[in-house]
């Protein structure tokens, strides 16, 4: 084990209840910062465009030559499919485009099933055309300016509060490690060797906060994918796998940076541990 890892374990082992609580608050503030940051990408409603469809929906344009009975048979046939959650017959008045054909609106059980269902429905006899959307609109409505300002203020507050708590937490940790640091200095351990493990504790806090946030984002993402209608008006970014992945990837360096900043701030306090 290197000196770095040895000292890291020693310093982590010196964490007592009060230090632990302060570092936990620091971790939670990093988590809050990342959560607020993620809101910029994940929140927001799907932009209304000229399409009738919401993510996970499929529109079937039936041949105009089908009889009422044939339309009903087709309706029942599709309704019994495993991939189908819901099926509705759209009346002419509901169609913006004023189409005269029979139109069925099918909702898939999940977005993942849309491509397969699209292909299966397209092969049915009497279906003239199939339209579907498996993903949310790429463009999302910007949420209100007030919310945007609120998020920015929240980001600033969490960063400041996080750094203040990191300072308090690391000062407490250094108090409980004073004798160790004193012995290290007497025996000729370079100052950097003492500081690196302390800074690393901050980075670890950042990484734990990031991992926690990413786990929660992915749980919400899987829930949003299964229930796209509920999320498309408030958090359409959660439905899109690409957006979720990008947000998660952005959170990693941010969490690490904020944690390391707190750690470096704490490491700079070793000056006060004079023998």
């Amino acid at each position, binding site marked *: *084990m290197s*000196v770095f890892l*040895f*000292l890291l374990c*020693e310093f982590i082992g010196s964490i007592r209840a009060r230090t632990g609580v302060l570092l936990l608050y620091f971790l939670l503030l990093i988590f809050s910062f990342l959560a607020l940051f993620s809101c910029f990408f994940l929140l927001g409603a799907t932009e209304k465009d000229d399409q009738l469809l919401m993510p996970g929906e499929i529109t079937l344009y039936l041949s105009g030559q089908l009889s009422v009975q044939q339309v009903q048979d087709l309706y029942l046939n599709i309704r019994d499919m495993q991939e189908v959650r819901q099926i509705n017959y759209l009346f002419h008045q509901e169609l913006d485009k004023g189409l005269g054909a029979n139109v069925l609106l099918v909702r898939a059980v999940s977005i993942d099933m849309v491509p397969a269902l699209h292909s299966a429905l397209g092969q049915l006899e009497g279906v003239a055309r199939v339209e579907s959307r498996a993903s949310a609109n790429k463009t999302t409505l910007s949420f209100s300016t007030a919310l945007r300002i609120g998020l920015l203020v929240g980001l600033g507050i969490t960063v400041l509060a996080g750094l203040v708590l990191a300072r308090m937490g690391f000062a407490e940790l250094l108090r409980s490690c004073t*004798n*160790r640091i*004193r*012995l*290290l*200095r*007497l*025996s*000729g*351990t*370079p100052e950097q*060797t003492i500081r690196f493990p302390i800074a690393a504790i901050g980075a670890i806090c950042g990484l734990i906060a990031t991992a926690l946030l990413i786990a929660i984002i992915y749980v919400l993402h899987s829930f949003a994918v299964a229930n796209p209608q509920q999320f498309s008006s408030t958090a359409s970014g959660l439905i899109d796998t690409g957006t979720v992945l990008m947000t998660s990837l952005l959170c990693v360096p941010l969490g690490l940076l904020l944690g390391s900043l707190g750690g470096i701030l704490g490491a700079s306090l070793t000056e006060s541990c004079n*023998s």
Partner: protein
Amino acid sequence: MIQVSELHFSTDDGFTVLENVHLHINRGELAFLIGASHAGKSLLLGLLAAQIPSQQGQILVCGRNIARLNKEKTFALRRKIGFLPQHFTLLPKSVADNIIFKLRALGNSREQSEEQALTALETVGLIDKLSTPATELKAIDQLKLAIATSICNEPSLLLCDEPLGGLSPEDKSEAIALLERLNARGLTILVTAKSPLPPIRASHRTILITDGRIKEE
């Protein structure tokens, strides 16, 4: 081993703590620096141990001019010096783990550290108290552990700042006997103490320091 000439040291407010100090300690010597409180003993030891930056004068320790050392070389020199400060504090660990902590922090492996710790504890006579928590030791045993921690990485010089303070007369004699044993193995030792000093061999030097000046050798 130690060569000090024209050493001056003043506090920020201009109070002179050490004035024109000349000191020479040969390799393999055991010397006692005797003086009252605030005579400048601890400061002189801190300067010799490269723990306090010098201001004026020349300090040669182990052939190195302390004033000219960069940070890296200062750390390297500190590793050659066993320094026992006046109010040493032991870690809330077992006797063996106190020494192992220092050795591992210096980059030794676990096995190597355990081996060196056993050797150091055997030297000071604490081998039978390996697993005892350091805080539960008697005062003389705590001093022995502190000395063992200072010498565990085999330094060539041991500087002890008032190690006899707070010990009973019997314990003081035992501590001096231990220092003499270490000196007999070839370790150069400089010890500060307040007078009166318990009986020591005539071959050991005593140096008096008064108000920051070496008065008598």
